[in-house]
């Protein structure tokens, strides 16, 4: 098992290296660079030497392979470089936003789990009744409603009925838990609904499948209480694929909340990503993409481990 874990961890390195090469090349193909954008923003005429000087300062005048190697060499020493826009270390810029994004992703996951597991199980137990139809329509609708629009509707509702607007600044949970939760619960609901739709559908089909298994029939034939059959025999087995889905969705959320953050005016990873793309902040975009795909690969790995520890049939070599 330890060897398997080590192997999986080591295998992440070539994948992340591939991601690094891919995003590096793609960004350099893009027309325009940060220096041009900076000067275009000021609206004044920029002398050619000034542009060249700034490019040299950012290392953009060096050949591409040189830029790539110095970036990689930095990462090997855990120095991810400085933001080309603000000049501050990217790690610092990311760290102050990561708390918000992680908390939001966690809260959305909690919302999704509490909605999807009971709803999905109920729908499976009452298959083809009006309860089942309701849950199915609720979850298909959840996949269709864009979470940013749901966010807009929530804000609109608060604005019209309570004259309340989401605050402009983020309050950390450690500073003021109540203010923090009232700020984040609404985006968490907007995102969690969509997320729960995915998980509900998975729960329903997994429970349906498990209920047809022989061991469930055996458990019932033994005269066990329906509650025991359901919780001990059915749910315990049905939840494996659900855990997988929830894990993968969580991984998507850490970097994928781009639009919802925009709606609720939350300065998280997603907003930083969009801003740095617009500003052609190469170093920032590269680091963010690496971080997002690292989280994604890592969560995949954790999900595999959790599944293996829950299901004795799964053995990895």
């Amino acid at each position, binding site marked *: 098992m330890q060897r398997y874990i080590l192997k999986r961890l080591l295998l992440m390195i070539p994948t992340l290296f591939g991601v690094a090469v891919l995003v590096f090349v793609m960004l350099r193909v893009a027309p325009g660079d940060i220096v041009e954008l900076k000067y275009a923003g000021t609206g004044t005429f920029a002398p050619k030497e000034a542009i060249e000087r700034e490019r040299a300062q950012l290392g953009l005048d060096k050949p591409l392979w040189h830029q790539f190697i110095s970036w990689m060499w930095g990462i090997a020493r855990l120095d991810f470089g400085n933001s080309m826009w603000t000049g501050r270390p990217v790690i610092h810029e990311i760290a102050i936003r990561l708390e918000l994004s992680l908390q939001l992703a966690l809260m959305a996951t909690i919302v999704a789990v509490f909605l999807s597991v009971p709803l999905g199980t109920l729908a499976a137990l009452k298959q083809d009744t009006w309860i089942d139809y309701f849950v199915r329509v609720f979850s298909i609708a959840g996949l269709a409603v864009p979470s940013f629009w749901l966010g807009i509707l929530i804000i609109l509702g608060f604005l019209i009925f309570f004259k309340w607007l989401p605050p402009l600044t983020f309050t950390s949970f450690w500073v003021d838990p109540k203010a923090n939760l009232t700020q984040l619960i609404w985006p968490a609901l907007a995102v969690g609904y969509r997320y729960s739709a995915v998980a509900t559908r998975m729960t329903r089909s997994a429970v349906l499948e498990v209920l047809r298994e022989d061991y469930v029939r055996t458990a019932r034939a033994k005269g066990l209480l329906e509650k025991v059959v359901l919780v001990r025999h059915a749910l315990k087995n049905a939840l494996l694929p659900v855990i997988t889905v929830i894990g993968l969705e969580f991984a998507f959320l850490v970097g994928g909340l781009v639009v919802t953050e925009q709606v609720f005016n939350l300065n998280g990873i997603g907003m930083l990503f969009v801003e740095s793309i617009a500003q052609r902040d190469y170093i920032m*975009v590269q680091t963010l993409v690496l971080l997002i795909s690292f989280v994604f690969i890592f969560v995949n790995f954790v999900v595999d481990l959790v599944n293996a520890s829950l299901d004795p049939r799964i053995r990895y070599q």
Partner: protein
Amino acid sequence: MAKALTAATDAGVVFHTRRGFDVCVRFARERALGAAGAVIILVMIFAALVADLFAPFDPLETDYAAMLQGPSSTHWFGTDSFGRDVLSRLIYGSRTALWIGFSSSFMGATVGAVIGVASAYFGGKADLIVQRFMDLLLSFPLIVLALVVVAVLGTGTTNVIFAITVPMLPRCALVVRSSALSLRQMPFVDAARALGFGHRRIIFRHMLPNVMAPYLVMLTAFLGQAILLESSLSFLGLGVTEPTAAWGLMLRGAAVEFAERAPWMAIFPGLAISLSVFAFNLFGDSLRDALDPKLRLS
């Protein structure tokens, strides 16, 4: 002799379309939800095709005398902050959504299917390299990869189509490859090889038609996602650009700014997005149930 054999092997894999009408009728009868989705999709396609006849106003025409007006008999769904008719923009927006949705899912699914089949057919090192590359593309959330592509290509309708195609590719390639792997062992593939057919002919004429079911399932599943992704990109200002009528774009900026004064600007485009994605998902789900033999058994 060789010619007759060629005809026979090719004919054996041709997809049957003659019974198309009967199949549609049966689909509608057995899967009411899917048929309902199909009806909504057809209405949307119709609206998009004849938008010029239907829309009461020019979607781009600004009228500063009629800014932010509520729903009335002239402007059914109200007007936006430029005095443009929201209903007309919605109708023309279906054109944008469908065009981007169809073309990106079609490209994504088709190129993905070809990659998947070719990868399974050639196997070995080529397969390994292609799969690693696909894994690479799969290690990003959909929207993050789309945003990176937009960063490279820039905004605008055509670029958005590419930005949505790229993240779809590996997902389809993965699914199609797994069903093509078992096809590769089929005798008819060996027969085609024994007859000395080229790789291209075997891939396109013998293997691809046999992965039609997963291909169609992926294609319809992509449609809803593509429309959702397009509206997200446009909402961020990194997709379709003004003044083109697009649902996501209609929700951007003024719709949020004036939400209290003119809620219709925020409500109707979102409804349009939700309804169309809902319809595509309903249809796609039913199609998957109908085409997936594993599910048909249960």
